[in-house]
């Protein structure tokens, strides 16, 4: 039963983390969660997907536009990752070595690694790798949401 409050705290924190980015920053640790840009992340992903519907842009121009959006995605994902990283430290009652905490941090680490990969592909202008990297990032997001977003 000890795990239940921890789980509730994680769900609550993640739900708060998903809220709008327009909240005013504050000095307490929960404000950090409120500043998580996951709604921005979703907006960027939606715009990336919608580029597929563009009919007249040459594919080369679409590459440039995708790269711009992925650059914004990288920034938002790193911001999300930083907030996620602090989650166990600011959740009272959370045992650092609890199973949820460990899994959460493992997925957080994976998010970070794939974001760094994406950034590297951007710097290399490796547009083929960008697509695959973006798909991997989406899988990681989905996995974490599946496990920890219970609403």
């Amino acid at each position, binding site marked *: 039963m000890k795990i239940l409050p921890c789980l509730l705290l994680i769900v609550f924190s993640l739900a708060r983390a998903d809220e709008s980015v327009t909240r005013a920053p504050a000095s307490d640790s929960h404000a950090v969660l409120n500043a998580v840009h996951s709604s921005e992340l979703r907006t960027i992903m939606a715009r990336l997907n*919608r580029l597929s519907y563009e009919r007249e842009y040459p594919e080369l121009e679409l590459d440039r536009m995708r790269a711009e959006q992925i650059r914004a995605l990288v920034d938002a994902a790193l911001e999300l990752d930083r907030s996620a*990283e*602090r989650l166990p430290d600011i959740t009272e009652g959370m045992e650092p070595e609890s199973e949820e905490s460990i899994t959460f941090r493992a997925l957080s*680490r994976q998010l970070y690694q794939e974001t760094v990969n994406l950034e590297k592909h951007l710097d290399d202008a*490796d547009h083929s790798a960008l697509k695959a990297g973006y798909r991997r990032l989406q*899988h990681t997001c989905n996995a974490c949401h599946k496990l920890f977003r219970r609403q």
Partner: protein
Amino acid sequence: MILFPAIPLSLPARSGNRPPRIQRRGIPAYTVLFALIVTASPLPAEEDGEISAIQREVGDLRRRLEELEARLQFLLEKKEAAAEAGTVPGETGTDDRMAATEKPATNNERIEVVNTEPPPGPDISAGGRIYFDAIYNSRSGGGGSNRADQAFNPAAIPVEGSGEDHQTAYSARDSRLWVKAHSPTAIGDLAGYIEIDFVGGGGNERVSNSYNPRLRHAYAVYKGLTLGQTYTGFLNLSAYPETNDSNGPAGILNIRQPLLRYQHPFHWGDLTLGLEQPETTLTTAGGSLAVDDDRVPDIVTRLDFSGDWGNWSLAGLIRQIRHDSAEAFVAADSQWGGAVSASGRIYIGDRDNLRFSLAYGNALGRYLSFNSFDDGVLDGRGNITLTDVLGGFLSYQHWWDETLRSSLTVGYARADHDLLIAPAEINKSFYSAHINLLWSPTLNTSIGIEWLYGHRKLEDGRDGELNRFQFTSSYKF
């Protein structure tokens, strides 16, 4: 119980001025065990795809753990070897990051995150789209290889006393093929692009409908420099409305031509400067004339402003309209003219957007509405009188959900000819309206229907109208 020792994970340093990452803890092996337990727990059947994704994540975690074990073993062996040789890795400049770039001796899989080698040679890829139209026209515009029946050209709408009623046309000519290449170089990404469609004329509907390919784009880009053939810099492509019809509404700017263009980003937006292919078109008593007498390229400039709200552009065009004749009694003449335009796409809410364009000038001519107007009028003595032209459109796109959307588009174009010298049977104005419903079951497919109404009016007062129903399917690959 801890089955395996915790292993520190080193990741590459972050670039730029981002704050340093907090040191992460190691991964005990029961992370994997827990993840397996989690993924084995019952979940709704409709979420099988996401379960598979999680299972892949678990597989990745397991693989990473194995890599880390191998890496730890490698480092331990290396440390022992260095100790035997009297050196320590850290003292010889081998930090964690450098160590991570080395391939583990016992693992054939590379650690992707630390591969810093640029990809060798150009990255070449090809793609295209299969585009199918099934069209019903209230009036047939005909045209070369019946193109006017397949794509909206306002200047081809039959006026009173011409054209035929009711006609069906099927077409796959707007299918496209493209090849692109990215070549990483020591000084940046060099990219090239070629695209064709099948609107190049020829062919007929009797046996094979084998129409000729047509060059749409062929250009290279290095940083902000573009050389080759593509859309004019006078056009903001983001404003281009989504219509089933390939040509778009009356009043649209739509020109592709050879050009030399440079785009530079500033903190307030982008500035584009370009020199583009000149081509003078003139109205004479005998009809429209495209002369090869141009000496100065068309000069184009554009300012782009963008943000989360969308984008808009302000563009300027300067052209020399010139005619020369071999006939002794006809003088050579040239006139300088210009045009300005404002266009953009503004996001409204989460998905909806408003696209617009408005252009005006006395050298707008062939840039507007698919060459429906000439740049000027040529009198019998060889004098050129430039024609004022105005055109624009407004398009609102509404997304019913993530895959279903509609666009309502209206367009208008008008020319003010000097009727003392211009023949009366030339185009005076056009307007059009499109409304459609498009569905994309996947990101690379679209199917939908559209109703198009077009109206054309001549200077002599005659007019004509067109109603078109169009089914379209598109598959991008």
